[in-house]
């Protein structure tokens, strides 16, 4: 296992190199010139030329890439053209918001998705199954921005019981903590702020979890159905075990393996920034920030965000594979090479 993990970590290097090459060249070739955006309406052609020279944008593109790579390896992702702030600081300021929302969404999606999936499998072709599948279909089909707007219209604009924007009421915001507001407010014992944070989380969490919940529901259902038809389940039933015990202890546990993979990958996807949800709910995470920076041709920030997302994806994949192997001892990674 250790050898496998080391091998997978080494494989991350070419993947990340590939990602940096693609994003670097896409931004340089397809994006528009950042100079007019950065220098403003009154900038002269001479001032823009001087600025490009200052920031090395006149250098050959391969040289710009090498400079970027050398700095990135040393932990320096550069400085935002637009705000003149180090990219790492910009990302660090926004990532906790994205991560907190993603974690809440995946928890809600997992609990609801597994419950609905099991219900659908156990009650196959009955009302509960059909209802679960319709819900899953809605979750997969409905665009996030649409479901978000509907929830805002109902709970914020009409019923006035939930806030529509932001992570917390600014005057209650915990300061100087980790940036994970649930944790920070609990650590400080500020339960008024904790309530406010949780209230702000409700609508974005529900919106963001809908798609993942639908995927998890469908995966759980199909995996459960496969397991329920296995010989050992028939044997368990023949031995007279209680239905609940068979479904939960024998079937669900074995059906969870593929579901855990899906949950892991969904979390990786959500951690990469939920652009539409963050936009609709004015959630101050990295998804919305990345798009703003693309529109401003702020190359260093775009590169930094993409690199961060790639690292998250690669490591979530790795984590899923490791947990998978751990949960199911039959799986032996790299057996062929070792054997």
């Amino acid at each position, binding site marked *: 296992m250790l050898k496998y993990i080391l091998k997978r970590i080494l494989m991350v290097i070419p993947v990340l190199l590939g990602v940096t090459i693609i994003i670097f060249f896409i931004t340089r070739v397809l994006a528009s010139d950042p100079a007019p955006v950065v220098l403003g309406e009154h900038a002269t052609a001479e001032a823009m030329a001087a600025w490009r020279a200052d920031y090395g944008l006149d250098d050959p593109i391969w040289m710009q890439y090498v400079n970027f790579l050398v700095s990135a390896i040393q932990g320096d992702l550069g400085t935002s053209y637009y705000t003149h702030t180090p990219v790492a600081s910009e990302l660090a300021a926004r990532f906790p918001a994205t991560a907190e929302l993603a974690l809440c969404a995946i928890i809600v999606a997992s609990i609801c998705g597994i419950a609905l999936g099991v219900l659908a499998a156990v009650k196959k072709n009955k009302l509960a199954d059909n209802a679960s599948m319709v819900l899953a279909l809605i979750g997969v089909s409905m665009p996030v921005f649409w479901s978000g707007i509907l929830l805002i219209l109902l709970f914020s604009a009409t019923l006035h019981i939930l806030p529509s924007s932001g992570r917390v009421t600014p005057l209650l915001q915990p300061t100087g903590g980790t940036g994970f507001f649930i944790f920070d407010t609990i650590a400080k014992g500020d339960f008024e702020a904790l309530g*406010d944070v949780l209230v702000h989380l409700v609508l974005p969490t529900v919106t963001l979890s809908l798609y993942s919940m639908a995927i998890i529901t469908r995966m759980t259902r199909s995996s459960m159905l496969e397991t329920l038809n296995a010989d050992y389940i028939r044997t368990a039933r023949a031995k007279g075990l209680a239905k609940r015990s068979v479904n939960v202890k024998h079937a669900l546990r074995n059906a969870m393996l593929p579901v855990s993979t899906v949950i892991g990958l969904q979390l990786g996807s959500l951690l990469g920034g939920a652009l539409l949800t963050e936009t609709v709910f004015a959630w101050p995470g990295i998804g919305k920030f990345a798009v703003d920076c693309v529109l401003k041709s702020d190359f260093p920030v775009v590169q930094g965000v993409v690199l961060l997302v790639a690292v998250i994806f690669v490591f979530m994949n790795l984590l899923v594979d490791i947990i998978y192997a751990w949960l199911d001892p039959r799986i032996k990674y790299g057996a062929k090479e070792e054997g």
Partner: protein
Amino acid sequence: MEENKLKFSRRQFMGLLGTAVAGTAMMGMVGCSGGGSEKKGDGKAASGDKAADSITYSLTADPRALDPAYFDDGESAVVSCNIYEGLYGFAEKNAEVKPLLATELPEISDDGLTYTIKLREGVKFHDGTDFNADAVKTSIERLLEPNRNSDQPYASFVFGEEAANSGVKTVEAVDATTVKITMRAANTSFLKNLAMALASPIVSPKAIEAASAGSAITTPCGTGPYKFVDWTKSASVTLEANEDYWDKDNAPKTKNIIFKIIAEGNTRITSLLNGECDIISSVDPSSANQITDGGYELFSEDGMTINYMAFNTDEGGICADKEVRKAIAQAINVEEMVSAIYGEYASVANSVMPLWMAPYDKDVKQTAYDPDAAKATLAAKGVTKLACITYSTARPYNAKGGVELANMVQGYLSKVGVDVEITQYDWTTYKSKVQTDPYDICFYGWTGDNGDPDNFMNLPADSNRSMNVAHWDNEEYKALIAKGIATPDGDERDAIYKQCEEMMAEEQPWLLISHSKNLLGYSPKVKGFYYHPTGVAFFKGVSKEA
């Protein structure tokens, strides 16, 4: 075999995971129900007692910086103008310059090259240091060459450039309360520059010293009615009242001003209707009814903008011919177009400058709508096709973006036998394309900086092709602009700009379309709020009823 070395078994792991998930879910449910009922009474997601003495204003984007030297965006300006003050400011409804940190208007030498400015005594920065002539000198000198750097977007506009022989040559602290500014050349708009929220406001020298060389200050510190408290990126900026504010007659009436960043227009409106914000900016004209129908106030006043269509006057092009430009202008019913696209939230432009800016002259005659005459001229000139570029993004002078305009113009011109091929770009790309694409007509606009006529009228005289998108090159017009900038305010200067307006109407490098209105929504509990036409909101006289 490795799994045997782990400290807990798979069964224990699954158990722990389940417990954690269930615990978090329960916490969430408790929080949801508790928090929900807490806010239910007033339906507002505000924060109990603390919110009673705060006003929340929605911004559409994160400020670029909170140091006047380092931003060029309206969002930063709205926040900063409450933290910092300049030597001068504007009157409430227009661009008339009033003393602020100066005690009176400057004494300007006859040649227009020396400004002697008397400063207010007893004013302190938020960090407790004194405001005086040395502070003014330090604050301005960091924006002058050679201290200036390329990250200061408004430095050259406000304080000029040595290479162009314009702007400020030296700043001298004559004594603690007197500053003498020497100019390289006379510039009547300089006084208005000093009243702007960008570059000009005076920053604490201590804060400048604490910042890294060539970087924005990290702790915003001015003399304004509000002090900086916190900036959470992409989320909010919080200010608190400056209890030691020097102008006791206009002391801040609200304890906290919170600027909340909400980019999405519909979410901004909901946040107002749900009580999360007290004032929202950049209301889309098509959503204005939602605000008034919900019992909220709509602020709708003229802004400082011009929305226009430019003809590419480059030699050899279709629109190099003035008669063609006139004929195309005759084919377009501007009044109908403005009414259809913007409704009552923009006014038809009869001059380059907005209605409220002197020296507006309503008698300037723009080309009248006359499709029959247009058809005859264009047929005689053999014009059957035009290439048009436009922008897809909403702009301050055009809340709907340029595509709707282009489509309507395409419709008008098809009626006179001209096909218009439209190419659209996002704004950032568009800024480059107006300098490189071979277009015949393009849509553009301008948001003024300082309320001075030169700031609008010099655009068609600019050598920068992204400013002068008509690429118009008229020596007579340029001479008028050069004369206007050096002529002191008064009848003579007004006459110069009136002549500029008439030349623009006659030569038709632009087809004037509209002047936009600033649209904001606000709670009826908010009292004393106004949005200045230069695009900032001052909060020192604003309060909110409990």
